[in-house]
């Protein structure tokens, strides 16, 4: 499937990658700037990284975002797996159209609409049911899990569709029954997709600004909310340092995940 790439194609490609990476590269470089500006180099310094470690507000927001993302991702993956199984294995079931619409609309819905509508729901629920009492961590988790499960479903569905059902039949033929067949054969084989789905839901939750802004409450400032409020005040090397740390974490995770996948499952030709 390889072939020659023409020059204009490669040029456009490099330009594209440039657009993706140059801003981040410049930002990372200037996070080590000794001066206060992000455009004029005043010498090398790591002091902004040091100040990150002592910024309690930031560290709290970071921890909160991690917590929320973890739970949202877990719920999302669980539900997403159910949706995926229903679509791939259950043929035409009652409610297929409804589930299909409800699980694909969130993928393209503008975040402001999702955020506003969820907030209005929570307020309505509070006045009728008494729960949720005020907005906070749990409402954010619910919100993130809701759109997360739709993404998770897409990822898992793709893998489930390519799945060779003959191996499930082989397992039954060899003496196994459900749910053992699911846990010993089906799940291990779709596990990469399940993990990918979890990571995707985690990332979407961790990075979410708009929806969290609507459904958070006092004292539940997530990291993006904090960064956004800071950014509005101006661009500083401190935020550069924070951003660089985040990008570094993501970079290490993505690269090691890719490496690990290649080792375990061979080269995807």
């Amino acid at each position, binding site marked *: 499937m390889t072939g020659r790439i023409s020059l204009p194609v490669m040029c456009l490609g490099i330009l594209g990658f440039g657009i993706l990476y140059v801003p981040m590269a410049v930002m990372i470089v200037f996070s080590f700037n000794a001066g206060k500006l992000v455009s004029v180099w005043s010498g090398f310094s790591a002091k902004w990284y040091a100040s990150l470690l002592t910024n309690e507000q930031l560290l709290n927001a970071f921890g909160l975002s991690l917590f929320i993302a973890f739970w949202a991702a877990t719920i999302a993956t669980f539900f997403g797996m159910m949706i995926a199984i229903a679509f791939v294995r259950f043929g035409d079931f009652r409610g297929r159209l409804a589930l299909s619409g409800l699980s694909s609309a969130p993928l393209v819905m503008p975040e402001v609409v999702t955020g506003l509508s969820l907030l209005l729901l929570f307020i309505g629920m509070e006045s009728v049911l008494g729960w949720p009492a005020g907005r906070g961590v749990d409402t954010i988790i619910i919100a993130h899990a809701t759109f997360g499960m739709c993404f998770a479903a897409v990822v898992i569905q793709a893998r489930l569709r390519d799945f060779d059902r*003959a191996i499930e*039949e082989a397992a039954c*033929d*060899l*003496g196994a029954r459900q749910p053992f067949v699911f846990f010993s054969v089906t799940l291990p084989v779709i596990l990469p997709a399940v993990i990918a789905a979890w990571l995707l839901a985690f990332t979407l939750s961790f990075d979410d600004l708009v929806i969290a802004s609507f459904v958070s409450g006092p004292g539940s400032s997530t990291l993006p909310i904090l960064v956004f409020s800071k950014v509005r005040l101006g661009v500083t090397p401190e935020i550069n340092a924070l951003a660089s740390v985040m990008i570094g974490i993501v970079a290490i995770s993505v690269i090691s995940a890719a490496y690990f996948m290649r080792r375990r499952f061979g080269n995807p030709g």
Partner: protein
Amino acid sequence: MAPFIRLTALTKTFEDVVAVDNLSLDIEKGELFCLLGASGCGKSTLLRMLAGFEQPSAGRIEIDGQNMAGVAPADRPVNIMFQNYALFPHMSVAGNIGYGLRRAGMRGAALGERIDALLKLVRLSGYGGRKPHQLSGGQRQRVALARALARQPKLLLLDEPLAALDKKLREDTQFELVDIQEKLGTTFMVVTHDQEEAMTLAGRIGIMDQGQLVQVDTPRTLYESPKNVFVADFLGMISFVEGRVTKVSKTGLVIDSQPPITAAIDQQRGPASQPKSGDQVTLAIRPEKISLSATATGAVNEIPVVVEDLAYLGVASNYRVKTAQGQMFKLQQQQSRRADKPLEWGDAGFIQFDPADVIVLS
């Protein structure tokens, strides 16, 4: 004594399609039986019913006297070797082979020994730790076989076992399969569309068409004595001549072809089913029974022909010859002497065949 495997009036309908049509079959213990048919004939459905993945719409399956109705695949004394092997990609070779054994409760040293014995049987000793994606096609096939044999099933089903292998590997594997089957004495049922596979492997072949068994016999009987035009045409090459019976005697019959062809009476058929004068019959002759020469000898069933087509295969030549009346014959001839000069395209000659070699089909 009841046969080891008995299928009685087995039928399977999918909506409006009848995949298996009132099929009955007996298989003896230790047989290597082959189900041969083109795609869509119902053989895969039959296989899945035996394994338990489809429930019959009607009829009965009995294995070693036990009725299989309502018995789940996991509980049947039947195992399958899948067409695409269906190896568990996340488990090692040993893990794959041991899966069924662990389900049966085997553990520890006994499990390890049994896995080693199976690896030895399929000549994969030492490969226990490998993963399926690290194996070649032929190796994966052997793992699939070992895995299916692990639980010592009473019936082993093989779904197109050689289809995914290349030619050379196929030849070697054919004999290996027969060896293993004879060594273990397990009853094998091979499902295939490949004639050569069936003829090589099987002790008996059942030819299937449109959900029904058309003829069940040894390969030799099927080839030399097909029961009808379908079977005759299905296996190998054959020439057909249609005509009306003009004369019947104690030894043979003659039909009204130009020139007339004499066929010997088939002693196997009872007198009642013998064709009578005036009946429409189809005669069939296998290609290796027809000889072609440049000159006439005056023997019976000698017909003047012209060579239409010729395919030189080295070990033999396949000829298509035509009579003046347009009747086509296919024959196969070997060049026994190196210096011989056989007939070429467009040459005229004479074919001849013995009346005893003519198959009479109604």
